[in-house]
């Protein structure tokens, strides 16, 4: 099996004809390269989507398999466009990073050693008049011998990038740089061979040193900036030891695990799929799992029998046998990876604008360089050369196109460490601008586990076991309140024709009798004996059970507030945000929660449509709304808000409409997430201002001959670095905390 086929087997998990592959690409430096790959692969028949993440050098392709296009054709198209393909399988990707790092280090190392040597020889020629011709020539030759290998080894990425651009008839950011290098090197070689005139070998050496040092640091940041979930996807084992029914052990590919298979996870091993402890582990056995890559939680979690162990956790206890509860494609981890990919598919608005600007930028620079050459040629030909070199080198479109992605990547990584998963490209920008937070109560402000706190029964004789009936109706419901009834289930009572009405309740038939459980109006609609309610004064309750015979019971179902809710709400208030509760629950329960949290604005008894209307009204008043819900019953509300966050529990997260997911239990990370987003957007603005300001200042100075070529090279590298390092501040601040 070739590497690419192995990779394919691992990632193309979709059933049917929709195929999907992720791989890494060598040679991506900027958004221009990404567009070229997108165009090359997109031109193939049956390709449905191509996404290129230039920051992580990853390409994702969706296509209709089995007809005209296969993985082979896709990889060939990428290679034809001039890029090398590397499979994104655990070890291969790591060693690819290592290879890239080593090569980059060698390039910088050679350039730095050589630059100093060339400088030592050629400095002897600076303004020296009493040096004889033979000695001058010796120094020129020494410079040429040192700098030429630097140009073709250390400068290879720039020359190669420019060559690739030109052969594909486009202008990338390497073109001006390579043009400057060749423009300085060729006349120097010519002058050396004819033993007369100026040589610029020292300048060439210095350009390349600054440029490749800049690239090296940029690359290191990119490698570190990979979000933890990506690191996680990469750390997944490719092979797993399966325990066959006859007790034999067999190694097999992770993609082949099916639900119900038993497999062994060694100490320190990553659990490849969602699983539970296998029966043979022993009834009292406890597994210890580090879920930090999934949730950001640093303490290992204990898992007993029946508790779900999420794919992607690391077994930090003794080796364990587990039973797979889902295949790879359905487990939590692949949902997270899918969401991350969705986030990368959508390039943020700001980054798109910067990309567009950067490609025009190169055209402008080349025009300016030509104008500079013409002007100086007329005015003072001797200085034309230096000025043109300076213009070509000093401009820095990279700073412009790196400004946004570098900062957003840093924020995304930081949020992932807090256990907040960003699933939409624009989410961070929108999160930074919110001024109103709307919270659902049930399952969001309160714990997801509910219990029945009170039961009211009418005086008139209804003899049915109301709890068991309610439990039968709620069986299988995903509503947060349903869980309260689960302990009261009776296997003999089965409800048929179950129907769930969002925001109202459930309906079902038990022993030929029609029952409803839900809001008062919903149940009364069936019973048509609303007046019965008054007989036991239960209107304050939040759940009613009734049949055609009348109301059978009223339940007070509640959930305690999350322990960290008060602190989180106070912190949100401290950020100057207006906080509103929007709940479908009754007044008493909602007001109790609002009082405990010291909130004035609480809306109770809202239907799903009512919540949407509330959010729309707030937005119409000019507020930018951040909606937080449990993600299960409030999808449309989440979609109505400017930016939304769902409590990401279980396997439903992949279907979530939310822009952000809390992988952590609790609300504690919300204030931090908003602070990080705000800080990130501040860094983006700083970066854009810096990149624009630098170019607007440096280009005229260079054109007027005020910047020497080596200073131009230094300035260009520093401005790129400034942008990347500024973006890193977002993460450094986190560490300091």
């Amino acid at each position, binding site marked *: 099996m070739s590497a690419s086929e192995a990779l394919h087997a691992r990632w193309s998990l979709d059933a049917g004809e929709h195929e999907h592959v992720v791989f890494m690409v060598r040679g991506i430096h900027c958004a221009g390269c990404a567009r070229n790959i997108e165009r090359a692969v997109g031109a193939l028949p049956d390709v449905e989507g191509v996404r290129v993440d230039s920051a992580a050098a990853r390409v994702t392709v969706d296509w209709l398999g089995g007809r005209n296009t296969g993985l082979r054709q896709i990889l060939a198209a990428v290679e034809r466009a001039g890029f090398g393909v590397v499979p994104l399988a655990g070890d291969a990707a790591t060693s690819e990073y290592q290879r890239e790092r080593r090569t980059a280090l060698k390039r910088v190392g050679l350039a730095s050693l050589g630059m100093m040597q060339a400088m030592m020889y050629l400095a002897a020629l600076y303004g020296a008049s009493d040096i004889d011709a033979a*000695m001058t020539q010796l*120094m020129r030759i020494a410079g040429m011998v040192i700098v030429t290998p630097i140009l073709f080894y250390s400068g290879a990425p720039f020359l190669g990038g420019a060559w690739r651009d030109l052969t594909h008839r486009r202008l990338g950011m390497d073109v001006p740089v390579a043009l400057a290098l060749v423009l300085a090197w060729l006349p120097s070689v010519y002058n050396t061979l004819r033993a007369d005139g100026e040589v610029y070998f020292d300048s060439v050496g210095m350009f390349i040193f600054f440029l490749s040092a800049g690239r090296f640091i940029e690359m290191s940041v990119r490698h570190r900036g990979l979000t933890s979930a990506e690191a996680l996807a990469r750390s997944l084992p490719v092979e797993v030891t399966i325990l066959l029914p006859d007790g034999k052990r067999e190694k097999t590919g992770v993609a082949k695990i099916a639900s119900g298979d038993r497999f062994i996870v060694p100490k320190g091993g990553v659990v490849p799929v969602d699983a539970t402890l296998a029966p043979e582990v022993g009834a009292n056995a406890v597994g210890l799992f580090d879920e930090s890559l999934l949730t950001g939680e640093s303490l290992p979690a204990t898992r007993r029998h029946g508790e779900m162990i999420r794919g992607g956790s690391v077994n930090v206890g003794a080796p364990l046998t587990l039973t797979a509860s889902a295949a790879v494609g359905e487990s939590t981890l692949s949902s997270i990876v899918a969401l991350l990919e969705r986030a990368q598919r959508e390039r943020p608005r700001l980054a798109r604008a910067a990309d567009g600007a950067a490609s025009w930028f190169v055209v402008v620079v080349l025009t300016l360089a030509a104008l500079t050459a013409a002007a100086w040629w007329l005015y003072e030909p001797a200085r034309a050369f230096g000025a043109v070199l300076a213009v070509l080198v000093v401009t820095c479109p990279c700073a412009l196109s790196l400004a946004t992605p570098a900062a957003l990547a840093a924020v995304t990584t930081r949020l992932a460490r807090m256990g907040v998963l960003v699933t939409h490209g624009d989410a961070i920008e929108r999160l930074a601008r919110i001024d109103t937070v709307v919270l659902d109560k049930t399952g969001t402000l309160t714990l997801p586990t509910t219990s029945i706190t009170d039961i009211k029964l009418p005086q008139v004789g209804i003899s049915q076991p109301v709890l068991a009936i309610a439990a039968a109706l709620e069986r299988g419901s995903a509503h947060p309140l349903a869980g309260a009834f689960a302990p009261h289930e009776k296997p003999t009572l089965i409800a048929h024709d179950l129907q769930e009405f969002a925001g109202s309740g459930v309906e079902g038939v038990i022993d030929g009798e029609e029952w409803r459980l839900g809001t008062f109006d919903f149940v009364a609609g069936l019973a048509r004996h609303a007046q019965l309610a008054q007989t036991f004064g239960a209107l304050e309750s939040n759940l009613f059970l009734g049949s055609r015979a009348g109301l059978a019971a009223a339940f007070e179902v509640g959930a305690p507030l999350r322990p960290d809710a008060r602190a989180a709400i106070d912190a949100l208030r401290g950020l100057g945000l207006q906080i509103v509760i929007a709940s479908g629950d009754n007044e008493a329960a909602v007001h109790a929660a609002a009082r405990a949290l010291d909130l004035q604005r609480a809306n109770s008894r809202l239907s799903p449509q009512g919540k949407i209307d509330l959010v729309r009204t707030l937005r119409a008043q000019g507020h930018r709304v951040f909606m937080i819900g449990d993600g299960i019953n409030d999808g449309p509300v989440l979609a109505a808000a400017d930016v939304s966050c769902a409590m990401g529990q279980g396997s439903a997260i992949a279907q979530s409409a939310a822009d952000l997911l809390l992988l952590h239990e609790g609300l504690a990370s919300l204030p931090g997430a908003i602070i990080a987003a705000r800080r990130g957007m501040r860094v983006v603005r700083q970066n854009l201002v810096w990149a624009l300001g630098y170019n607007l200042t440096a280009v005229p100075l260079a054109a007027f001959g005020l910047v020497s070529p080596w200073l131009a090279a230094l300035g260009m590298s520093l401005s790129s670095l400034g942008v990347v390092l500024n973006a890193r501040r977002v993460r450094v601040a986190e560490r300091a905390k």
Partner: protein
Amino acid sequence: MSIAYLLVSLGLGVFALAVWAMFWAIDSGQFDELDSRGEAIFDESELTSVPRAAAKKSDSVE
């Protein structure tokens, strides 16, 4: 004058040697993990003299 030819070519030789030594060091992994070696003293499993290959593996998991 002829001493200059000798010194310059000697200089180029030393330069070539330095470049070769640096490439060798990079290729043998000297610069691959600058952080984790320094942090290794805090790693308790290191106390029991884990073989180098195993120790390296645990670094890369992070």
